[in-house]
């Protein structure tokens, strides 16, 4: 199954749309651009079709990613 996930970040920060091989879990942390965010809720956005599941994850920013280099 491929999980197409719409991540929306609380507080007006931009979210991300991406495909992944596993569903997002509450408490999981993901990198969205410059920010590290934590998933607070996951719901089905659309009914699954073929090999795809369509999910909506709400996130909250945790902290800024440490700069590289």
């Amino acid at each position, binding site marked *: 199954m491929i999980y197409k996930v*719409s991540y929306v970040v*609380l507080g007006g920060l*931009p979210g991300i749309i991406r*495909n*992944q091989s596993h569903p997002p879990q509450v408490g999981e942390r993901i990198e969205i*651009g410059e920010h590290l965010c934590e998933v607070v809720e996951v719901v089905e956005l*659309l009914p699954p079709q073929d090999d*795809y599941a369509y999910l909506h994850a*709400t996130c909250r920013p945790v902290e800024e990613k440490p700069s590289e280099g």
Partner: protein
Amino acid sequence: MKVPLETLRSTDLFAGLTNDEILSLAERGEYRTYYAGDAIIHEGETGRNLYIILSGQVAVECEGEEAPCDTPIVYLGAGQSFGEMAALDAGPRSANVRCVSREATLLVLPGTLLRQLCEEGGRSGCQLLYNIARDLAFKLRHRNLTAGGGGL
């Protein structure tokens, strides 16, 4: 560049296509690697290529009063595509797109391929257009969710 079929299969645009159809389409495109900060598309410019993200993240940014250039509208990650609006309507690019991950690998398909596939009358052209329409609808839903503060 050798890209595993499994990676191509996990992209939205190739959903519902057979392995042979996917490989045939991929052969008509070009693989490109971008690095953090690289501009991929400039708002307002002409261009009809369709971009499929195989790995990495890009930021989509619009220049406008409500959304200054340095504020992304959305980030797109693996499996997503962009550039479909100009590929379909031949209009100017509607946003800036730049690479924000350390590296991003993209498959770039010529926009003219869409029309060509439809004119050839095969199944893959119809499926590809359906996938683009479905993806645009999903992006619109994401936009609505963002505007609504995150809740359904």
